[in-house]
């Protein structure tokens, strides 16, 4: 050991996510560039992977022909109707499970039984129950978004700070006030992050729902392309679904920012 003064070595830092702008975009761009280059040079054959630029032209053609909007508007209305139905009942049932012991005891096993069922397997049943039209599609998406919403909602209600509820009681607040002003706002962060999962599942089931005699819709478009091994159109459809996922996640992020401004 020499006696010379040295700075103390720095050992902290790291283990804390920092926002890096553009990193996500860079990964996308790099991946697409690699695919484009590979298909052009030839070490990726056109049968394995379509050329990204071809997919882009397919998309543009689709938009020009006006069919894109037909597909998209139908799909979006299905996704919206189904997931609004599933999410609202899911939040309602989840809050009820969180608040009432009898509902909890009665329904948690039922939800646990429903959750792992691949909803696609129930397609024929839905057709019989709700008809081959829009009804069965709404029902499928609703059921698919319902179960994850229930689970995340009652988890969120369970996690509400009990000392806040005790405080409400100690000031003589009514039961309804405690639920409305303490339990629901306290559960909101958990409910919103559960919605991300629910909506993603809703998009997955959209494609499944459009397997059922749908002429138009992103799912129908992808299935047609798939059965013809038309990879460009298949990928064009997949890109639209991904964009839908990114968009919904961004919207929830926006809602979180607005509604949860009180969080650190």
């Amino acid at each position, binding site marked *: 050991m020499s006696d010379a003064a040295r700075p103390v070595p720095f050992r902290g830092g790291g283990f804390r996510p920092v926002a890096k702008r553009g990193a996500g975009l860079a990964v996308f761009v790099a991946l697409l560039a690699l695919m484009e280059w590979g298909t052009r040079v030839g070490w990726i054959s056109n049968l394995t992977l379509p050329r990204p630029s071809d997919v882009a032209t397919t998309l543009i053609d689709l938009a020009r022909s006006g069919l894109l909007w037909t597909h998209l508007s139908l799909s979006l209305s299905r996704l919206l109707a189904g997931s609004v139905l599933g999410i609202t009942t899911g939040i309602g049932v989840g809050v009820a499970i969180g608040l009432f012991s009898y509902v909890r005891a009665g329904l948690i096993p039922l939800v646990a039984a429903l959750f792992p069922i691949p909803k696609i397997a129930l397609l024929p049943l839905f057709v019989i129950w709700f008809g081959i039209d829009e009804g069965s599609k709404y029902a499928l998406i609703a059921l698919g978004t319902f179960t994850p919403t229930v689970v995340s909602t009652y988890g969120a209600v369970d996690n509400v700070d009990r000392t806040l509820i005790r*405080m409400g009681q100690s000031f003589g607040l009514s039961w309804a006030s405690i639920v409305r002003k*303490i339990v629901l706002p306290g559960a909101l962060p958990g409910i919103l992050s559960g919605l991300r999962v629910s909506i993603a599942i809703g998009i997955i089931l959209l494609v499944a729902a459009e397997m059922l005699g749908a002429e138009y819709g992103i799912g129908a478009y992808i299935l047609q392309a798939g059965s013809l091994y038309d990879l460009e159109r298949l990928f064009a459809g997949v890109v639209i679904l991904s964009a839908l996922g990114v968009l919904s996640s961004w919207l929830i992020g926006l809602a979180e920012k607005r509604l949860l401004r*009180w969080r650190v």
Partner: protein
Amino acid sequence: MDLTLDRVTHRYGDMPVLKDISLRIPAGRILCVIGPSGCGKSTLLRLIGGLERPDEGQVLQLGTPPPGCLNPLTYVFQDFALLPWRSVAGNISLVLEDHGIRGPAAETIIDDVLARTKLNDFHNALPRQLSGGMKQRVAIARALAVNPAVMLLDEPLSALDAQTRELLMEDLVALWERAPFTGVYVTHNLAEAVRLGHSIAVLSRRPGQLRELIDVDVPLADRQPGDPQLEALQARLWQLMKDEAMAADQELLDV
């Protein structure tokens, strides 16, 4: 309004936490409850305010709460219990809304209690923007807003640092001097007890029993830190509690 505890006994499962406690809480005075950790001080406070039911004995109210009192038994919690999604004013209006007090009427009360707790400038601040001492001031303002007959303070200063604690003790004394309130003040801090208590109830370790009830005759406003009479009292309290505290410290938890 006076409160009386009549042979209150309480258990959690098979474990007795409080045994045979009889106490009188006279109006207009602050009763400090001290005792080693785990002696059931906080449980006692929950029993007094009706957040829990005693297994035996009862807590009695004598007389009716004064007019204009919205919530006779009002708590101030150790961890503040402020709603993080409501502003300072919103947290206070929370406890008024259920009594139908809204708009200008609520605003008058809020402004008054914020002024009394020196929080005028923090009307719209969110709890996360406040220091611990400020948060506890908000909780005290919220308690004052319902005009309580009895304030139940559960270690209100224990989550704060020593300087903030000193400042808030002075504020509490000033509040009491301005409008004497009835208080039950639970703490494990002997200095707080001798500064704020008109009388001090010393509990034994679990199961908590009343060991001694000491009256402190010095007026609250005259008590200064370092006062020899109070120091002597604090030393005496420590002698009373020392063995109990040591024994309590060496007990296994979750038995």
